């Protein structure tokens, strides 16, 4: 079976590497142009990338430390959600959930809300971050995943290159050219692709990883579904600031601004930053001005990105599959882009493409698209829920408070939360979705856990409920043992840069 991947960005090279890692029956070619810049969106990931990197590779062509060093990466223990309520408060959205997250009553989570006023203390990640530690185990000289898992922050331009180098070791065929023309047959299948180097190529299946250009998919009749009315932002100004090891913390900062929010991601050589905003409420110039005032320094924007949140109706259409920004784009919050790219590639490579006949099997393609759409839509709802936390001081936040179209799933959740405590059966359990571990903290951020309701419930279950005691033993385990085993963030940062 032959697959041609068009586009040598992050999604394209991750997909190629995944095929080499798991399959020998697929012949892969990557078409990329050295003349086109990559978007390199996503300087952060979810823990699916951690899985992809750490699950053993043939001949150890990928190891975690090697990956971290070459992509200027740092570990990511949580997202720090700052001032989403409008009162200056912060809440971590940790990579690892509480250890009781799979129980019908997430005891630690609830106990944390009562004791600390917020849920994140139920996860060790928060404790570690509050002490500026890393999860690097001094004794075993490696990053531990047992108690507090991590994702990554990395240089968006370097990660594609990293997996390209991996593929070159595997012997990938690379064609350096742009697409000149596409020829479809009478069934809308892509037959021939003419390249600018004069070559014409064929393939059984095509993967479109050409980012926002959507070079292959945009030629089909596949429909675009916009999330514009549900997700409020549409522009981004990325920039960098200096980093130093003395104040490094392994978290993504996501702080609200007048017309959107600001990300700040620690890399080894700089902070990757950006202001995501809605241009209907604030101009580019005003946004820059707001940034400069806030950071009290001059800003040099790398570029100005405009985007339309949404997804294709079908990620897999005829013999083309879109992976990466070419299939969907939400926005940078929660670093969903690479996560969904990995999820899509995994579904394709490990499940839905078991043989060549699968490509023309309509039912198979339908099943694949259903699974991908469930995941994208779940994340769309998750991101929207971030905005419903309560801030309402500027026209942008007033608009969200009063006028934004709340998705059906979120409306139901909000309604239910008024009557009883939410729990893990209230969120989607489908493979690849955020699940309770992610959603629960975002519910908390949105104020969906009424303290009196929790108290009432915990009282009723008082002898059954040892959440408070568990929280105490968690605290003493952390202070007396875990804390002493871990390198500080600054020490680990230096170790990575060596």
């Amino acid at each position: 079976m032959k697959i041609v991947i068009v586009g040598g960005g992050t999604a394209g090279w991750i997909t190629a590497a995944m095929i080499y890692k798991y399959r020998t029956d697929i012949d892969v070619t990557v078409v990329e142009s050295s003349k086109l810049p990559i978007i390199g969106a996503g300087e952060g990931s979810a823990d699916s990338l951690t899985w992809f990197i750490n699950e053993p590779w043939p001949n150890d062509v990928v190891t975690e430390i090697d990956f971290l060093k070459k992509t200027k990466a740092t570990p990511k223990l949580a997202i720090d959600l700052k001032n989403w309520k409008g009162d200056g408060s912060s809440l971590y959205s940790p990579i690892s959930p509480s250890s009781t997250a799979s129980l019908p009553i997430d005891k630690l989570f609830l106990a944390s809300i009562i004791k600390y006023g917020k849920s994140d203390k139920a996860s060790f990640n928060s404790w570690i971050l509050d002490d500026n530690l890393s999860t690097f185990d001094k004794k075993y000289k490696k990053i531990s995943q047992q108690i507090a898992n991590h994702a990554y922050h990395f240089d968006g331009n370097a990660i594609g290159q990293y997996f390209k180098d991996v593929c070159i070791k595997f012997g990938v065929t690379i064609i350096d050219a742009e697409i000149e023309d596409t020829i479809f047959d009478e069934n809308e299948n892509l037959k021939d692709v003419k390249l600018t180097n004069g070559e014409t190529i064929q393939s059984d299946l095509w993967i479109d990883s050409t980012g926002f250009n959507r070079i292959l998919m945009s030629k089909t009749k596949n429909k675009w579904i916009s999330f514009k009315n549900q997700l409020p932002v549409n522009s981004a100004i990325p920039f960098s600031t200096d980093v130093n090891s003395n104040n490094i913390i392994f978290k993504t900062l996501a702080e609200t601004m007048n017309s959107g929010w600001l990300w700040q991601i620690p890399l080894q050589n700089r902070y990757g930053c950006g202001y995501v905003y809605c241009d209907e409420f604030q101009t580019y110039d005003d946004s820059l001005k707001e940034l400069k005032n806030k950071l009290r320094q001059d800003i040099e924007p790398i570029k100005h990105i405009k985007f339309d949140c949404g997804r294709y109706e079908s990620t897999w259409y005829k013999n083309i599959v879109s992976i990466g920004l070419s299939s969907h784009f939400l926005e940078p919050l929660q670093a969903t882009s690479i996560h969904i790219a990995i999820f899509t590639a995994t579904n394709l490579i490990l499940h839905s493409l078991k043989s060549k006949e699968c490509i023309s099997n309509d039912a198979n393609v339908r099943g694949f698209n259903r699974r991908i759409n469930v995941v994208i839509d779940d994340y769309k709802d998750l991101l929207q829920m971030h905005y419903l936390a309560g801030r309402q001081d500027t026209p942008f936040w007033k608009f969200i408070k009063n006028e934004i179209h709340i998705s059906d799933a979120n409306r139901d959740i909000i309604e239910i939360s008024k009557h009883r405590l939410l729990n893990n059966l209230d969120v989607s359990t489908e493979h690849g979705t955020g699940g309770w571990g992610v959603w629960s903290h975002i519910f908390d951020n949105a104020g969906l856990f009424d303290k009196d309701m929790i108290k009432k419930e915990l009282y009723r279950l008082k002898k059954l409920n040892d959440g408070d005691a568990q929280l105490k033993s968690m605290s003493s385990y952390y202070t007396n043992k875990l804390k002493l085993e871990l390198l500080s963030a600054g020490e680990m940062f230096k170790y990575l840069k060596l």
Partner: protein
Amino acid sequence: MKIVIVGGGTAGWLTAAMIVKTNAILKKQGLQPVYDITVIESSNVPIIGAGEGSTGLFQETIVSRFKDLGITELDFINETGATLKMGIRLKDWNGIGTEFLSPIQPSDTFKYNIDLNFLSCLSNGNVSDASFCGYLLGRDLSSYNFDRIKTTGHHSYHFDAHKVGKYLKSICIKHGVKNIDGEITSLNRNSLNGNLESVTLKETTEVITSDFWIDCSGFARVLVKPMGAGWVSYSNQLPVNGAIPFIEKYETTDKVKLETLAWAQPNGWMWRIPTEERYGSGYVFSDMFTTADKAVDELEKNIGKKIEPIKHLKFETGRLEKFWIKNVIGMGLAGSFLEPLEATSIHTTIIQLDTFCHHFLYNDIETISVDTIRNKYNTHIGQLVDEFRDLIQLHYMTNREDTDFWKFCKYSLQKTDSVKYVLEVSKHMSLSYLDFDSSHGSAGWGVWSWTLAGLGHLTKETADKTLKNFCMYDDSKKAYEQIIKNSKIKAIPLMSSDEFMKTLWNKKLGKR
């Protein structure tokens, strides 16, 4: 909070027991029990006693969840005349002379993208050996050690539904459940919010009030019907609509087999379920193609002995459009009825109760009775029952064309979307858990896989191809040998099916 359960069949007493369990936990903690439970049943109305078999979930319920009520597995087996159920033997479904097994437990690797154990066994030997439970089923072994204490735990039960109802009733009564003997003549609803406030009983004209109601009155649906529940019929998608249950005696030479026999017949199929004293058997058929009398003749000819039907049951397969209306929930046969294949009825009841308790989480009725919560419940349970309908329909997609009934199933039955999907995709590749509903209680790939392989929709060739493409083909040979070797070792201390049941029964006789 007061809960009234209407109907004293299996579903009614199981429901009562599940709620009693919640009370028992609270009481153990020195707290006030929350639920005041009453069961209204009529000694004049016989119970249907559907479901003489169940799924692994029922075993889990009896063994782990009811531990607090003082129930143990051996007690339950002794008291209800139950036998273990390792799975189902499906005979003649894909043509006369064919046979396959559907074990209770899926393969150990069913949660992976590539179900290596399943594919290895399909490729190299008997597919049912992919599950240890299937390994035992194929070799007439029980899951119990010689000391009758340790079990590998992979089984469900066959039982006499009347006895299970009685047994659970005795436990419930011990734990303070009130029991009223009476028939309901009328419902009294609140004219403002439409809630059911009370019911009036026949003869005594007693009025019973309650905060919440659970309708377990079987096909009569005494509460949900007057509450205006709509019905979603499956009669276009499932071919059978009648059944004649009967009793078969053990022959002295019979060895007890821990399996449900599901034997395809000219116009439907026959079940034969072993319990302590007898086989509970029956013929499920379609009256479009045969009559009850003719069905008896057909069956007698096929099994070579006379039968005496207990009754002739007519049913319409389907489910309530909404299971939860106002302050009433339809449960058991009052909520849905498929047909006995795959024994889904009690399983659905348990999931309905799980979900019900999940939504309540010890809250009171008023706070919870909002449309959003009810809708979520109804959607979830509706999808679950629909998925079981699909699973059952798959069994009728066979190679048989020897009668009009089987021709009808093959060519004219309206295929559901899932069945269409599964059949189409299986032509080229093996499915995985990703292809199925993953909501709480659904069957998923683990259960579907046996029937797909058994009916030849998923072939050895397809399995080989998948294994080769993922460079697992050579490993699969080793994997297969390893699975068989491990199972063999694990099975050494286990008693044979016949030995286990008969030792248990003999011991009981000794006691008497």
